[in-house]
């Protein structure tokens, strides 16, 4: 039963991911008073891509053709351990937050290899930059996460969330810092403005897109879907770790549906905020990214210290 629930939650996760990015795009267009595509546009794109026959460069190796599957399933796995609508599902125990980071690394590793596989300058550039940014982002993210895990003294996500829930509404300076750190990291990792521009077609300014230039057909579909998943994963992390209220703690249908509604609400709000910031902020130069990320790291560190000094001091 629980396992079934876990599977369902994961599927829900996967299914909702394109919707979120559709919603994000919709908000953005309206903020920039452009005519918005329908919310289902991402689904249509994915469908279209899966129908097409993929075109692959002649000297591409199996790395190139298999990477999309690996990346996608890594993301699905990540989705399976992040509580979306309910906590203490059995799947959460199979991997904790560190492993979650590991999944992201896994996906990134293959994406970067795929970028190098064709041997184009763009691919190389893309993977080089991606690895740079991620290697700066990872410590910042872990710093933020550690703040949580040390408060809850567990690295198991659902347990940690439960712990936060049980403590009820406590004003933790550490959490504020950590949340901001995590948000910054999320923006960097999901390739949003100001770090990267998903919609760009000026090749030299892009990072994530540069790696996947050569992809087409179902491969492209998988990768797009994976990145939408990633976006949603970060969203859910932020939403459920720092404002977990509303998430289902029992498995009653009513609690679950309640949980679903709340998470949709939270994500919707987050998306709006993101859209606003992307509208207001301009993309920054690549070599200012490290300042941006070290600021994120600093926030994470501050969160950690304030946890140790202010909250858990003995």
């Amino acid at each position: 039963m629980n396992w079934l629930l876990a599977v369902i939650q994961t599927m829900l996760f996967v299914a909702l991911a394109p919707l979120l990015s559709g919603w994000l795009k919709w908000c953005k267009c309206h903020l920039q008073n452009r005519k918005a595509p329908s919310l289902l546009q991402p689904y249509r794109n994915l469908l279209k891509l899966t129908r097409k026959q993929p075109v692959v460069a002649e000297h591409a190796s199996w790395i190139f053709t298999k990477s999309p599957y690996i990346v996608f399933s890594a993301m699905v796995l990540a989705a399976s351990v992040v509580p979306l609508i309910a906590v203490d599902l059995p799947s959460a125990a199979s991997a904790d937050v560190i492993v979650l980071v590991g999944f992201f690394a896994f996906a990134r590793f293959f994406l970067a290899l795929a970028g190098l596989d064709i041997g184009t300058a763009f691919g190389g550039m893309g993977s080089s930059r991606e690895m740079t940014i991620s290697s700066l982002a990872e410590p910042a993210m872990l710093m933020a996460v550690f703040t949580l895990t040390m408060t809850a003294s567990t690295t198991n996500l659902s347990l940690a969330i439960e712990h936060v829930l049980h403590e009820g509404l406590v004003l933790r300076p550490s959490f504020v810092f950590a949340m901001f750190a995590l948000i910054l990291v999320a923006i960097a990792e999901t390739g949003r403005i100001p770090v990267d521009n998903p919609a760009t077609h000026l090749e030299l300014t892009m990072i994530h897109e540069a790696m996947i230039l050569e992809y087409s057909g179902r491969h492209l579909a998988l990768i797009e879907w994976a990145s939408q998943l990633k976006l949603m994963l970060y969203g859910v992390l932020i939403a459920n770790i720092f404002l977990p209220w509303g998430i289902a703690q029992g498995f009653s249908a009513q609690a679950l549906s309640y949980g679903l509604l709340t998470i949709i609400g939270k994500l919707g709000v987050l998306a709006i905020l993101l859209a606003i910031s992307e509208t207001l902020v301009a993309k920054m130069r690549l070599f200012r990214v490290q300042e941006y990320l070290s600021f994120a790291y600093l926030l994470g560190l501050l969160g950690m210290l304030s946890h140790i000094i202010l909250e858990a001091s003995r």
Partner: protein
Amino acid sequence: MVLILAYAAVLFSFASGILALLTNQRPRLETLGQKYLARFPKHQRCRNMLNDGFQESRYPILLRQSTFVLLGLSGLLALSAGLGVLIGQQVLTDQIPLGLPWLPWHVRFDGLSGFFFLIIGIAVIAISLYGPGYVQAYQEEKHPFAVLGLFTGLFVAGMLLVLLADDAFFFMIAWELMSVASYFLVAFQHENSANRRAAFLYLLMAEVGALAIILSFGVLASFSDGLTFDALRHANLSSTWASIAFVLALLGFGMKAGIVPIHVWLPEAHPVAPSHISALMSGVMLKVAVYGLIRFCFDLLGDVHWQWGVVLLGLGTLSALGGILYAMMQPNLKRLLAYSSVENIGIIFMVLGLAMIFMANGFPQLAALGLLAALFHAFNHALFKNLLFLGAGILQHQTHSLDIDSMGGLIKRMPQTSFLFLIGCMSISSLPLFNGFVSEWLAFQTALQVNVLDNGVLRSLIPVAAAALALTAALAAACFVKVFGLIFLGLPRSRNSEKAQEVEDKGMLLALKLLAGLCFFFGIFPSLIINLLNNVAKQLLGLSLPNDTALSWMWLAPVSAQKASYSPLLVLISVLIATGISFWFLRRNPETKTMRRSEAWDCGFGGLNARMQYSSSAFTMPFRRIFAKVWLIDEQITKDMQGAQDLDVAAIHYHLQVQDHSWPRLYQPIANAINQLARQVGRIQTGNIRVYLGYSFVTLILLLWVVSL
């Protein structure tokens, strides 16, 4: 029984060394054999065997193979001995009637030694599979196999003896045997001066380190009676002296383990040795140094101070970051791998430091966890570092180069090697499902138990170290993306890599397969090793992980299931399911099932060629920018101008040299100081006999005055 296995392992490695010496003795042996067989006229078969054994052509091959067979046997024996003592959880002691009249060689074989026996065993088996194919590339007159084989045998024997030693004297003998033998191996291809320089540097550092170790033993010995480890264990010394001993030991073992900033010999020496030797040195010898440190701190010194832990943690962090950053800049594959060894040793030291801190603060269980993580990482590093070095050997074998920038596109020419190498890269950049990740995960878990500590400084320090560990891991991933991507993917960058073929020798590939298989296996079933390690912790710290965190065969919950858990098996299964479904789902349509091959799109630029690809220095350029302070970077761009008033550019030359800080900052000054001193001292020997007489005269007067005071 187990001890006999251990002895046998040592003897077999010796034997393989001795056997190698017979390389040039063919004629003598043949005549000897004939003479012997002449006594028994009826053994026609033996004689025939002998004859074709001694054919000019067959003999060397036969000898080589038998040498490596012996080596492999010694590896097997070491493996079984290690397993035996680990499973039996026993402590075996013995004495060998050698050494000093009042101090025979003491032998002790316990869990810790057993575990490192395990590591050495696996590594030696791998290289004995790999060796025969690899060494036949050396032509005999230039690089005599006798030397290589002899010192390989001695090297392995030395390492095993270090693990067996139970008194300071025997320990030092074994230790130095290991150093000297490996020195001769580093100097094996001594025709080019870089190797000679590297060898000299290596031996010098080894000597200095050994002296430091001797001194640290001396400190203990002067507070106890005798040199046996038992006596040293009972030495009760003041905390100052204990700290002095610790610092000396850290210096000595750290120098061998290659922690920053005393790591300089390592990236020089490891790359120039033959690849299977580099594998042994980088994968195993460093571990022996780690063993020495653990033995000295946790076993001999006994009560550790948390300050030592902080020192270890700091040095470890420094080495981990420094190592990987330096590694990233190397265009030479083996240098890169050597630097990455520095990184991994750094990680091990970090976790050991954590263990010490917990130990000193009275949390032996967490100390056990830390020790466990450290040992497990040592084990993993041995596996994947051997794998990568052996792979590098194959690449050198097939492309006659180690320069990453001259390779590319090898994945199609060497499919098996590339796949195995990929596994190595994935485990070293600690991706889930592979063993590297598990030990790093454990390290994080150890670090996150920090809030049991009272000391606020530590509680804020350790998470920072953990974040540094995360940075290290991420950088490692970047580094090995570069390695794999540039070597195997893209287009071939040189004619050699265009013409490269899969290595035909089965043994070499078999060794890689073995190691890669183990990397994956222990990534999925880590608990097997961890249960063994529990016994080690039990023996060493008298405590092991609590039973309620039952480490079942599929779950990993080191502290308690409530705190953290990880089940590689489940993850693997779900990955397979997810991949399977998406694979099936997307390829069910027959007409889109097949992919269309065409030339790369490349944003429509077209005319793609190998020189357009990202090179090693290009790939790492962002890191160079960001961490610029870490290296001494010498970057020059020169333009050849031509045409009217030399206005238009004919060619642009880009020169980049990235250097380690520690050389000019630390070593150069010392060398200069010594030379300066020597010059000053040289002044006293003027060559004039009257001056000499003056010395004698003055000395006489002086001494007479002194004694008559």
